């Protein structure tokens, strides 16, 4: 009882001061506030925004843990120090060594993402005198999961500041933004520091450092012994260069024991997370389902183009176009983007009909960009950002349907 009443007294003491929102943000993490209803409904349902956001974070945690192990695993595998894991529970995957390397690389990303992002949120809350809103709790977890494992921390910090300020706060904070903040951060990184975000050297911890060491050694003319370049190409990167699936099996892709951004590789865990979000009624099943349908349709169209012989093996699009249509759901960040980013309720379509259209187009355009974008063979980021921009337009036409029905009712009456 002591803590509760002490905190209550502190809250009363600093009520109305500049720092009150910052204090309340911490206080409300410990205790559900003592606010009561006034007029209007005298009772309220149990859910609040914190709970809603918390569910999404819980859905992300398995992806994070898997991503940590995978970071270590890909590192040692590329170094040739361990055997390839055989299946999801492969003995060389869930090891202490993998965990340590992974933690060493991934935890700082999480800490920087949350630290910087929440600091910006607190500053804005204090300046503008509103409560600290929960939106960044999810964004802060998403960001480390969608960047390459070796992303320098200062780069991440700059991107987070940009994403939170330009992507969200300038529009008025949580609930008012047009673009998904996590993807804004990712897009900023991609366009500002392309060499760190794409290519075949960024997806495995140590690859880039090894490359630089080789370059230095070459410069100095010293021996290159023990300095084999580490290759860490993603499947998408390989397909874009018509090099096939490398030696990854479909099950590897499904389990996620492949190189890629930290947390987006395991389609299995993302699928489970998606089902969890649908079950808890937090995530929109309409968007997830229609997005998958959109991607499959686009994949089928490309497969059809290949089988009709319009595109030959010499074409630079052959690799990705000839990928079996359902493989597109497993590779790259598509599954992660669909489940966690496209469903962001603020930036997605807000009407139920609109969600079907929006989701379908996210999937459809993702695969289209994936195939045709020469610079960066992943489309889901750009597709979602593009559809974020169009979501209000989709909603507008859906709502106009309702408005027209109302006007028609009036005309029938007066006619």
């Amino acid at each position, binding site marked *: 009882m002591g803590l509760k009443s002490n905190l209550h007294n502190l809250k009363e003491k600093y009520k109305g001061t500049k720092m009150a929102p910052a204090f309340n943000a911490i206080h409300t993490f410990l*205790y559900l*506030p003592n606010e*009561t209803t006034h007029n209007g409904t005298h009772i309220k349902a149990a859910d609040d925004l914190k*709970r*809603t956001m918390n569910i999404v974070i819980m859905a992300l945690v398995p992806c994070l843990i898997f991503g940590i192990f995978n970071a270590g695993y890909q590192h040692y595998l590329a170094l040739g120090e361990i055997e390839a894991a055989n299946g999801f529970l492969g003995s060389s995957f869930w090891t202490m060594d993998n965990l340590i390397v992974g933690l060493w690389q991934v935890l700082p990303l999480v800490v920087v993402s949350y630290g910087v992002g929440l600091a910006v949120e607190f500053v804005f809350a204090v300046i503008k005198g509103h*409560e600290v809103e929960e939106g960044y709790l999810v964004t802060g977890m998403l960001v480390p999961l969608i960047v390459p494992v070796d992303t320098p921390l200062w780069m991440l910090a700059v991107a987070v500041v940009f994403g939170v300020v330009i992507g969200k706060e300038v529009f008025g*904070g949580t*609930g*008012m933004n047009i673009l998904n903040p996590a993807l804004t951060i990712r897009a900023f990184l991609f366009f500002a520091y392309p060499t760190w975000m794409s290519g075949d050297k960024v997806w495995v911890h140590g690859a880039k450092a090894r490359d630089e060491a080789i370059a230095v050694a070459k410069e100095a003319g010293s021996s290159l012994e023990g300095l084999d370049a580490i290759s860490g190409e993603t499947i998408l990167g390989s397909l874009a260069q018509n090099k096939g699936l490398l030696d990854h099996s479909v099950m590897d892709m499904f389990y996620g024991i492949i190189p890629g951004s930290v947390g987006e590789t395991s389609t299995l865990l993302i699928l489970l997370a998606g089902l969890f979000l649908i079950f808890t*009624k937090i995530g929109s099943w309409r968007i997830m389902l229609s997005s998958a349908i959109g991607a499959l349709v686009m994949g089928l169209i490309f497969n059809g183009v290949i089988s009709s012989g319009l595109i030959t093996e010499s074409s630079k699009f052959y690799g990705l176009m000839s990928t079996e249509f359902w493989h597109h759901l497993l590779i790259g960040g598509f599954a992660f983007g669909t489940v966690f980013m496209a469903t962001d309720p603020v930036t997605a379509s807000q009407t139920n009909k609109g969600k079907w259209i929006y989701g379908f187009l996210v999937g459809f355009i993702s695969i289209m960009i994936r195939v045709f974008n020469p610079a960066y063979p992943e489309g889901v980021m750009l597709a979602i950002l593009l559809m974020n921009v169009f979501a209000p337009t989709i909603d507008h036409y859906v709502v106009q349907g309702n408005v027209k029905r109302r006007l028609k009712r009036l005309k029938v009456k007066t006619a």
Partner: protein
Amino acid sequence: MSKDIKIKKGLDIKLVGEAEKTVEQAIISNFCTIRPEDFHSVIPKLVAKEGATLKAGDVIFYDKSNEDIKFVSPVSGTVVEVQRGPKRRIDAIKIQADKEQSFKDFGAFNMDSDTAAVKAHLLTSGCWPFIKQRPYDVIANPEKSPKAIFISGYASAPLAADLDFVLSGKEAELQATVSVLSKLTEGQVHIGIGSNNSPLAGMNDAVIHKVFGPHPAGNVGTHINKIDPVNKGETVWTINAQDLVVIGELLLTGKFNPERVVALAGSSVKKPRYFKTRIGSEVATMVYDNGVEKDGNDRIISGNVLSGKQLKPDGSLGFYDNVITVIPEGNDYELFGWNKPIFNKVSTSRAFTFSWLNPKKKYDLNTNTNGEHRAFVVTGSYEQVFPLDIYPMQILKACMYQDLDEMEALGMYEVAPEDFALTEFICVSKQPHQDIIRKGLDLMLKEIG
């Protein structure tokens, strides 16, 4: 052309403390208080000054903008106090009731009278304020002629008074009123009933609709939307079923006798049951003798938990209400309340809230908001509890940024604040939906009229 109304979207909130079906005579209240704020948008012009002696049915005040609309005293007695707020606004008129009640005699009404005579009779006898109109959810404008009149004989709100029980035995009064009302509209009187046992089921001069589904199936707004929605330029009138009895008694006997059977309900009440009392009676006459603690940390509400009005312990029964609900206040902190699994509160999600496991369980909810006020974030949840053919979040946002054209296009003429009670209840962002809609309607009334 009776048409059944079936809705699927909605939510029955099951609460502890439903009123037991026995009626007691409440202790006769010494004072009777009329609050002009019950009559939204009415500016009262006082007739009965402090010290005036009144009979039940004598005019207390009338509406400044329409002098024909008169508000009469529910009791005979002496005006002891006129409480005023800022700018001499009249907050309440307190009447000390006589021991022996005397009534002003309006005379038995000739049931074959024409429309004008009906209107005049209801206006002078103080029964007009029982009739409300949509658009705007205010007292009906007597100069207009509505396209239909809607009456809901089915109360689906949590802990609402069971109208079948409350109205039983009053068929004669009900029929008299329905017949008279049918003269006021070019269209029809529509009555929604929950079961065939309803005393309203056999009414003549009206169309009876059976209603099925969860709350807000009983809300008159739902019936209007499903039967004959309000278009621009049209008006419908609504009237609470229990007020038909008061009007009926006036028509048949000439007395304005606003007696009402009221449910006393809620988890803080030890013996929830029905009481016979009057409009404006002090709630203290019922509440404290039935197990509500005098210094308890409770919320007393005139009306139901979703759209009633908070009362102070010395408050009185509202003009339109037939329920008094008493529930515990929730002004306490809850450790990790935002993330721990919740079994004892209602939720429409399954976000570690487990009310979906046991849909029949009755809950003891308090007035805690269960979270802080936020901007709108979550989408798609309101639609699950909102049966009207209207986009709830879009219309709320239109009200917030005061875009009159958009409010009109999205269906503002059709709604009343109570239609948004459920969306407000489930709102994750804890936005005051009913208040937003009320302010939107007020703005439209002012700008468009």
